């Protein structure tokens, strides 16, 4: 049900029946390493190319989530997914393997929550009993796609971020047990004129703040409603900018714990990740691996995940265009019967 300008309130309370997180070696060495379902110790995931590796991560995460939900592929009505590669091949090719009716979406790194919001809307509206939302990214494919091939050995400035290697998937169900998806806010595209592809956090921070303020306005909530609010991948530079913007706009963000998945997944003091993490998988594996487990265990009751995405293409920034950004928020709350 539409609430306010750009938010959905899910009255039929779709639940996340099961979720999975599959990551690469660097993520496994991070502070959340123990929360992920599968940690690969080889970046190639046993595949011939990085693109095939990324696809294998998506397939593994999708199969794992479906299996953990006690279902099989034929019971999942729709798969909503996307990734960072040209023509979102990782998700589309994974959907070919899975054989589930598929909707490809692109929201750059906001795809995690964009796909989850859409899956929840489909289930809430009675369009499916089970829908799968998922996304993936790989450090080496993203470097090749957006910056330089890794063998080129190009220098990175300290504002750069490290794309997470991993995939996350969630099975959204009409009923049953599990964390409940209660609301979602779909973001507007915000562009503050930043052109530096090595400073995505700064470009995305205003989009995250725009969506957060829209969420609070539409649903009549304040930050204190949530135990935890996390942005997707603003990392160190973007997180500080977003805090400043929230204070400037009079949002009482100090009522809650406010963090960023891009800061949580790695320990920046001992891992070579510059300003922090980024990538579709960043918010996906932190939300599906770490946060959902803490909701299930009762440590957290209400969490808002605001996945942020930079909607640039290599061509657009080479032609000197600025970086348009977006953020989508999904509210996940502890179910009553856990």
């Amino acid at each position: 049900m539409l609430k306010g300008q750009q938010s959905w309130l899910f009255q039929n309370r779709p639940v996340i029946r099961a979720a999975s997180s599959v990551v690469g070696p660097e993520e496994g060495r991070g502070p959340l390493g123990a929360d992920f379902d599968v940690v690969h110790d080889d970046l190639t995931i046993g595949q011939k190319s990085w693109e095939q590796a990324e696809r294998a991560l998506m397939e593994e995460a999708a199969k794992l989530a479906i299996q953990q939900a006690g279902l099989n592929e034929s019971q999942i009505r729709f798969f909503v997914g996307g990734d960072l590669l040209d023509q979102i091949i990782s998700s589309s090719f994974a959907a070919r393997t899975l054989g589930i009716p598929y909707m490809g979406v692109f929201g750059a790194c906001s795809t995690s929550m964009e796909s989850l919001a859409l899956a929840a809307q489909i289930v809430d509206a009675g369009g499916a009993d089970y829908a799968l939302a998922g996304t993936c990214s790989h450090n080496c494919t993203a470097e090749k796609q957006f910056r330089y091939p890794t063998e080129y050995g190009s220098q990175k400035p300290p504002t750069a971020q490290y794309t997470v290697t991993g995939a996350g998937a969630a099975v959204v169900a009409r009923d049953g047990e599990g964390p409940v998806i209660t609301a979602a806010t779909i973001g507007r595209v915000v562009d503050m004129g930043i052109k530096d592809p090595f400073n995505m956090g700064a470009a995305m921070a205003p989009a995250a703040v725009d969506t957060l303020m829209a969420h609070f306005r539409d649903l009549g909530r304040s930050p204190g409603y949530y135990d935890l609010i996390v942005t997707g991948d603003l990392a160190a530079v973007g997180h500080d900018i977003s805090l400043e913007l929230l204070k400037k706009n009079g949002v009482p963000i100090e009522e809650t714990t406010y963090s960023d998945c891009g800061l949580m997944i790695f320990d920046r003091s001992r891992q070579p990740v510059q300003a922090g993490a980024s990538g579709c998988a960043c918010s996906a594996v932190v939300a599906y691996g770490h946060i959902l487990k803490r909701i299930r265990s009762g440590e957290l009751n209400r969490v808002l995940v605001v996945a942020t995405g930079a909607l640039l293409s290599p061509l657009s920034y080479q032609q000197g265009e600025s970086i348009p950004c977006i953020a989508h928020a999904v509210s996940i709350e502890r179910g009553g019967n856990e």
Partner: protein
Amino acid sequence: MQFLWAFLVGGAICVIGQLMIDVLRLTPAHTMSTLVVIGAIVDGLGWYEPLIEFAGAGATVPITSFGNALVHGALAELERDGIIGVVTGIFEVTSAGISSAIIFSFLAALLFRPKG
């Protein structure tokens, strides 16, 4: 003393390149081509040869010396063959460098399979 000057001059050229990346926010490719052009202009003014005499490898190893070599070859052939020498002479001095880049890239491609 020769080593010190080579280190300082070569290092200074690299500092200029690093500042182009960090301060001017040029891409690595733009930085490299700009340094080649700077080397070409400096040789056009007749200053690169004295720099090589002074700093040795400090001036010949950085990419600026490639620009110097391009102009140097072109000017030498210009004197010998007239205006057509500008075209034929550009790769005169640099042909060894360019040919070895092609040959060694080919050999490396036979042995390794880049994933990117």
